[in-house]
């Protein structure tokens, strides 16, 4: 993150819930709408499921994860069937099983399934839901978290078919996140 942007964010008071009466920031909103296309892509959405659907999804068609795999009490699968039983810390070409360090479901506070772009945006910015992250930490999470980066190297399935990556590159995504944060991190209507 560049210092001027960080300063700008601190001035804006990023940490507060964004329900302020300010001029509608259409540029920032438009950026988030594009960011959301990544967040709603299967690679992300498959693990950002909600409490009503206590399981991960799989595939580009987002079917319910086969074999009764569940979220479990700690987001790492039911006792006796942890994510790590099958998923290791990198993609496994032999079996077609994807992997990344710390493979697990996103916590329920980060559930995005069924949410509008606005709702996802507000969730992302809420420190009680986003893991106590400020702007810098949020950008860092998107740029460096292994599970996030996995979305752009998701490997192949057991028939050798490549999983679809999100609709922009990781670099483009990171730059877009930074611009969104720098322009006030506005949420769409």
């Amino acid at each position, binding site marked *: 993150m560049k210092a001027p942007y960080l300063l700008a964010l601190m001035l804006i008071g990023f940490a507060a819930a964004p329900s302020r009466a300010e001029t509608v920031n259409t540029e920032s909103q438009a950026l988030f709408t594009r960011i959301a296309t990544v967040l709603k892509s299967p690679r992300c959405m498959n693990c950002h499921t909600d409490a009503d659907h206590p399981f991960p999804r799989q595939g580009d068609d987002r079917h319910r994860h086969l*074999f009764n795999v569940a979220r479990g009490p700690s987001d790492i699968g039911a006792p*006796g069937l942890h994510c790590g039983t099958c998923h*290791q810390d990198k993609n496994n070409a032999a079996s077609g099983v994807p992997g990344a360090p710390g493979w697990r479901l996103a916590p329920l506070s980060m559930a995005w399934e069924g949410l509008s772009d606005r709702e996802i945006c507000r969730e992302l910015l809420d420190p009680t839901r986003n893991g106590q992250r400020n702007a810098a930490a949020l950008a860092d999470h998107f740029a460096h978290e292994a599970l996030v980066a996995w979305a752009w190297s998701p490997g192949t399935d057991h028939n050798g078919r490549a999983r679809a990556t999100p609709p922009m590159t990781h670099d483009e995504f990171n730059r877009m996140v930074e611009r969104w944060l720098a322009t006030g991190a506005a949420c769409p209507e």
Partner: protein
Amino acid sequence: MITFRINGRSIDVDADPDTPLLWIIREQLGLTGTKYGCGIAACGACTVHVDGIAARSCSFPLSDAAGREVTTIEGLSHDRSHPVQKAWIDHQVPQCGYCQSGMIMAVAAFLQETPKPSDADIDAAITNICRCGTYERIREAIHAASEGGKSR
């Protein structure tokens, strides 16, 4: 050269590091109790323990075993004395038996974590495929093993 421990003994294996641990166990190490059923981590026949945690070895590269403790069905006990093995014999669980090494390893790891499971816990945890359909007796045997070998 990948070094790890298998059933309590240290071993060096010289093979392609991407080789699934399943085939190393079965061929280079000659331990054929761990079975190949699907190769895509769908059936669980290849289940072993890595550092005490269940892992499907068809989807676990040799390189990831470095420095770890691997336990196969042969290492669960010397004499079929593990409570799960005893329950499996008492309740005459296996039919063809091909899935049962993986099933026993999955159940053993599960009971370590959930010593007194409910039926719902068992439903959520045990996903190994048994084509002979021994699931009814598997459930009974899990309850028996969790109660220290007594029948339900």
